[in-house]
């Protein structure tokens, strides 16, 4: 029978969760309540005695000091409306899983397969609110209809004796596993209907290639031998759709593109990925020769570079945009624990050392009406931040670097970038750690979580724009603890030499992980019915492609299989033998002994036809605006500091554990009050060595509105600039590109597809040009190409955005530099030249203009500057160093001053410009490759000597008086602000988030 245990706080105990909910209901929905109290509810569906339930309620479920409990009766005291929110059947319920384990420890008896514990939270609201308001609170804040269900009960209707009726959200399925055969000898319209209704995301050409395959007599004969008929099975079609999805196959990046440059020139590009990304790395590595530090690029789950003789560094950045649009918390949580598996599943496996995260949102204060199915940006902000918080913190991986970019077009789709770095032994059992290979005869072991319907069609769904029929099952909730247990186990298994290869189960589930690993051997045979399920009733195709989380696929030699499974069992991890890697040449799945897929590996992996795209660049004759220089420059500076893209993100940063593992030596918040904005993070991953890892990023989507070529160049420069600012070695740094684009395929729905494709080409050209010029190899990356929202006539496309992440090395962390001014009397220098480059700047955007002069990067002089900076850092000549980005010199001066707790007196007439510029241009131009440094007076000569012949401006001094004083071009005082006022303007906007 089912039991209901309610746990609430004792009288007089502060309900911090309730208070927070009350506050957030006011902030999100504008509904003012008198009080919110919360009660945890455990619905136990298991064969237990009343004494056992009582013991569970008393023991693990409640805390005797602060909580009380009730079994099968309500705890609710006074309230006006009660809202109880629980999960829908089949949604991952982590607390429920832990509750079940706790009861098992208590009784010493395992639960049966169909027994379980389900959790929900009861909110007791007090205050003036009608039915509509209660529904708004439930649907618009407390719950998410995609994954949760709720009950709303007014006080008058509440059954004080029995409380909320017991509901058990168990998945009940009477469906018999069945394999359907699909007739592909149908009209083109019918083929497209099959693709669309099955969420296969295959286009007509691809469907026709599959049709031709199915009709080939040789294939038919081969398949007949395995008992398959002429049509393909649903399992096969799903396998093809996953493998060929944009998400997995990167069809746009692999497309043949006819590009016209708008000035009469044209060319054909056979895959921008091969030409510009792989090409850049190939050419950079060749130029580096013996100094090449790349170990594994593009071929594995993450890129690998050399760290030192004994250790290699692994890094990967992913996006999880589409799921985060539907369920921000679950989407982002899954994003972070998902990207954790990439470095972990690289080579023979690596230990995670830090996370990074970058989000792109619309303003949380967005006030316009939203089109259907879009969540309010504030809700997305809160959910994503909390998801990454839980995912990162619980996994014990410090979140050391990140940023948040705001643009209202991200209301159509938020971008959630999550990155993870790891450390792997350079050698494992005498072999390079970054190399792995499954061997014929190895067992296919699935390790970790079980399979459910969660995450079905994730890969194909994210290959489409967000539309009305976007499936709810695409959303998953990550489980950091199950994953942590699995990682603890796998690291031991690795060190004991129990496997030959490992990979992650991410997009496409087993279909992708086993399919890709089997490329090593040339085939596999997998028994889908052996896979452990969360609940019964899954169809074979669902088992194959489910993206249920926290799973890895491991190739275990037959001789080690027993030891592998025994170790897993002992460590409370599930490991299941699903079959064997073969050299049959076939992707062979069975269910109950009957063949359900029999596809040639070659067709699956190489059969997808190359996409053909047209790209046409137009020079959109933008103009520089005619604006008067603001009269009150102090106020202008404060306004800029309070812009969402510039202001402090401390409230978010503090919610991430950024120093677990005790390696974070340069933290995200620096300065006298630990609240200044660090440019990059530095991590010391090995406690017995002073070698460090530096990580930073660049992201400049605003510039895409003028030219994506310069957007890309500026993102690369910004990433490297941040990296060298803290001390990263410019000659030992690698890049990762994460493209998030709007659909660039010309169609009725995307009439400007050719322009968007040209934007893509131009960004890739810049990627090649600047990686080569800076000598930075690309080691991994990802693209997400359908970041559009389209329902009815409303279409919102994100601005083309590339996150350029960089990771590299510093030989000695003790040479690290932070951005805060250190002492009165130090000299203030600007490195680099300032140009009339206000196009798409924060300053113009604030004034409502776009402009034309987007910043351009001069890589040669920048590289010389960055190398000189490394020299100065090695010789301890810098007191502080801060990069100039959004808001230009004005913002960098203010941040350096208030982070350090000192004033600064500087003279704009000293700023080196390439032409005579107005004061607002000198202060707010976003010219690239510039850095602001402070230097002790006694180091003046040594410092200037290093930069001899380069663009160097001595602007003034750091002062005791806590005033930022800027002398204008006419010698007048242009800005005179107390640093506390500037800091307040910078901290206020997102302080309460």
């Amino acid at each position, binding site marked *: 029978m089912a039991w209901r245990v309610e746990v609430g706080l004792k009288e007089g105990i502060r309900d911090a969760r309730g208070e927070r909910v009350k506050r957030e209901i006011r902030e999100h929905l504008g509904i003012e309540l008198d009080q919110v109290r919360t009660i945890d509810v455990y619905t136990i569906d298991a064969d237990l005695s009343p004494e056992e339930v009582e013991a569970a309620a008393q023991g*693990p479920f409640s805390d005797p*000091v602060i909580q009380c409990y009730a079994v099968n009766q309500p705890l609710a005291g006074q309230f006006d409306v009660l809202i109880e929110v629980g999960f829908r059947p089949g949604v991952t319920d982590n607390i429920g899983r832990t509750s079940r384990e*706790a009861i098992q420890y208590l009784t*010493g008896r395992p639960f049966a397969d169909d027994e379980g514990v389900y959790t929900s939270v009861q909110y007791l609201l007090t205050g003036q609110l009608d039915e509509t308001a209660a529904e708004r609170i439930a649907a618009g804040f407390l719950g998410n209809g995609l994954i949760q269900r709720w009950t709303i009960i007014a006080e008058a209707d509440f059954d004080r004796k029995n409380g909320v009726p017991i509901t058990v959200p168990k998945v009940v399925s009477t469906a018999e596993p069945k394999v359907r055969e699909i007739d592909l000898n149908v009209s083109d319209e019918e083929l497209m209907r099959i693709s669309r209704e099955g969420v296969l995301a295959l286009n007509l050409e691809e469907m026709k290639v599959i049709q031709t395959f199915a009709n080939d007599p040789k294939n038919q004969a081969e398949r007949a031998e395995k008992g398959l008929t002429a049509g393909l099975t649903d399992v096969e079609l799903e396998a093809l759709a996953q493998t060929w999805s944009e998400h997995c196959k990167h069809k746009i990046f692999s497309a043949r593109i006819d590009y016209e440059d708008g000035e009469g020139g044209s060319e054909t590009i056979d895959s921008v990925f091969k030409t510009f990304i792989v090409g850049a790395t190939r050419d950079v590595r060749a130029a580096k020769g013996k100094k090449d530090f790349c170990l594994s690029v593009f071929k594995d789950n993450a890129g690998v570079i050399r760290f030192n003789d004994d250790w290699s560094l692994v890094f990967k950045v992913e996006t999880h945009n589409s799921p985060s649009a539907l369920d921000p918390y679950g989407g982002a949580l899954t994003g972070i624990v998902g990207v954790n598996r990439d470095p972990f599943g690289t080579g023979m496996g690596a230990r995670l050392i830090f996370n990074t995260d970058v989000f792109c949102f619309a303003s949380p204060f967005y006030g316009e009406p939203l089109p259907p199915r879009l969540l309010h940006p504030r809700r997305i902000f809160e959910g994503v931040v909390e998801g990454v918080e839980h995912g990162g913190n619980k996994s*014990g991986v410090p979140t050391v670097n990140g940023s948040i970019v705001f643009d209202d077009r991200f209301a159509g789709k938020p971008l959630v970038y999550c990155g993870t770095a790891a450390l792997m032994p350079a050698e494992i059992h005498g072999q390079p750690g970054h190399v792995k290979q499954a061997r014929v005869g190895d067992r296919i072991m699935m390790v970790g979580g079980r399979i459910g319907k969660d995450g079905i069609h994730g890969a194909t769904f994210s290959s489409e724009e967000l539309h009305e029929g976007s499936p709810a099952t695409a959303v998953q909730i990550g489980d950091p603890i199950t994953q942590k247990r699995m990682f*603890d186990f796998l690291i031991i298994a690795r060190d004991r030499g129990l496997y030959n290869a490992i990979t992650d189960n991410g997009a496409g589930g087993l279909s992708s992980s086993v399919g890709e690993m089997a490329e090593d051997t040339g085939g596999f045979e997998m028994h889908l019915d052996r896979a452990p399920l969360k609940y019964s009733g899954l169809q074979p195709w669902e088992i194959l492609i489910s993206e249920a989380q926290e799973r890895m696929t491991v190739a275990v030699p037959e001789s080690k299989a027993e030891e592998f499974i025994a170790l897993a069992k002992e460590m409370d991890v599930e490991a299941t033998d699903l079959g064997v890697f073969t050299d049959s040449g076939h992707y062979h799945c069975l269910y109950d002994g009957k063949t359900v897929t029999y596809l040639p590996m070659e067709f699956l992996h190489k059969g997808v036809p190359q996409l053909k795209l047209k790209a046409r660049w137009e020079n959109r004759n933008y103009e520089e605006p005619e604006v008067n220089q603001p009269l009150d420059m102090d106020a202008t500076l404060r306004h800029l500091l309070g812009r969402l893209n510039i202001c402090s993100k401390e409230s978010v940063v503090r919610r991430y554990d950024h120093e677990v593992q005790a390696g974070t030596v340069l933290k995200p918040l620096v300065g*006298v009050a630990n609240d200044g904005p660090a440019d990059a993070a530095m991590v010391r991953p090995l406690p017995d060595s002073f070698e460090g890892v530096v990580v930073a990023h660049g992201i400049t989507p605003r510039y895409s509105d003028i030219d994506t070529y310069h957007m890309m160049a500026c993102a690369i420069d910004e990433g490297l600039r941040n990296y060298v600012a803290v001390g990263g070695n410019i000659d030992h740094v690698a890049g990762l590109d994460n493209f998030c684009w709007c659909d660039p395929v010309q169609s009725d729905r995307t009439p400007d597809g050719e322009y968007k494709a040209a934007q893509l080409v131009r960004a890739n050209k810049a990627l090649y040009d600047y990686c080569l010029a800076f000598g930075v190899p690309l080691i991994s990356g990802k693209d997400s190409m359908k970041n559009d929202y389209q329902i009815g006539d409303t279409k919102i496309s994100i601005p083309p955005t590339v996150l350029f992440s960089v990771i590299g090395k510093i030989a000695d962390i003790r040479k690290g530099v932070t951005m805060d001014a250190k002492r009165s009397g130090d000299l203030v220098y600007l490195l680099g030249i300032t140009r009339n480059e206000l196009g798409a700047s924060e300053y113009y955007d604030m004034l409502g203009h776009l402009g034309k002069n987007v910043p351009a990067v001069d890589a040669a002089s920048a590289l010389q500057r960055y190398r000189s900076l490394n020299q100065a850092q090695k010789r301890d000549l810098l007191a502080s160093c801060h990069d100039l980005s959004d808001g230009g010199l004005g913002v960098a001066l203010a941040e350096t001053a208030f982070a350090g707790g000192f004033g600064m007196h500087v003279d704009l007439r000293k700023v080196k410009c390439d032409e005579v510029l107005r004061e607002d241009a000198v202060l707010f131009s976003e010219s690239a490759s510039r850095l602001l440094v402070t230097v002790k007076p006694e180091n003046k000569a040594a410092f200037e000597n290093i930069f001899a012949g380069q663009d160097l401006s001595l602007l003034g001094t750091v002062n005791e008086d806590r005033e930022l004083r800027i002398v204008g071009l006419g010698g007048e005082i242009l800005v005179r602000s107390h640093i506390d006022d500037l800091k307040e303007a910078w901290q206020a906007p997102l302080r309460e988030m």
Partner: protein
Amino acid sequence: MSKQVRAIVIAGNGTNCERETAHACRLAGAEVVDIVHISELLNGRVLLQDYHFLNLAGGFLDGDDLGSAKAGANRLLHAPIKESNEHLSEHLRKFIADGKLIMGVCNGFQLMVKMGLLPALGGDFTQHATLTFNDNGRFEDRWVYLKADPDSPCIFTRGLEGMTLPVRHGEGKLVVDGEATLASIEEKHLGVLKYSLPDYSAPTQEYPLNPNGSIAAIAGLCDETGRLFGLMPHPEAYVHRTHHPRWTREEDLPEEGMGLWLYQNAVRFIRDELL
């Protein structure tokens, strides 16, 4: 077992800080430091009695899903040791009775409190205190100042006036079951570390100096023997100068981090009293 100080750090099911905790023990001079997965203890292959210093590291045991460390405490209290009639909790009691040392940090502190190991007034191991949600309802990572009680029996804080360490938790507010418990804690000087003003002059209830609203500003608690000790801030996160958030500007910071002192005291005590 010769003359070696032997420390154990238990790992698994969501611990996160085992590696840096082990490193701190090594730096402090412990000769043997083992990170042991809990399954090794539950299988009886590793025995607690072979160690002097038990470290319960920070993390999120079982995701803190039932409240911080609740499910973890339930496991330690009820999990049997394979193929024996014994429970891990009995081994733990024996360890304590032998006068050995336990330090719990963050989640490890929450675990000790919820198992009744702290404050253990009068040697009574039933739960009289708890650690619950911070007053602001959020997880936070920030550095705090801690004032040590010179009259405390705590062996870990001997000779210590104050220290600065990071807190990284969402459930660090100490609450007790009544006035009497608090009075006993204060009277016996068991609330050995208190969130304080930056000059260590006085404890404070002011946010963010007191990051969670803990009663009597208590950040760390010991039992009456001074050998069982737990604290929310992370001493293992400040064992070197470069851990300090302002090491790039405070030029006179000593090479050794303040957190290390607690481990050094433990090792010294073991060498003097237990070997």
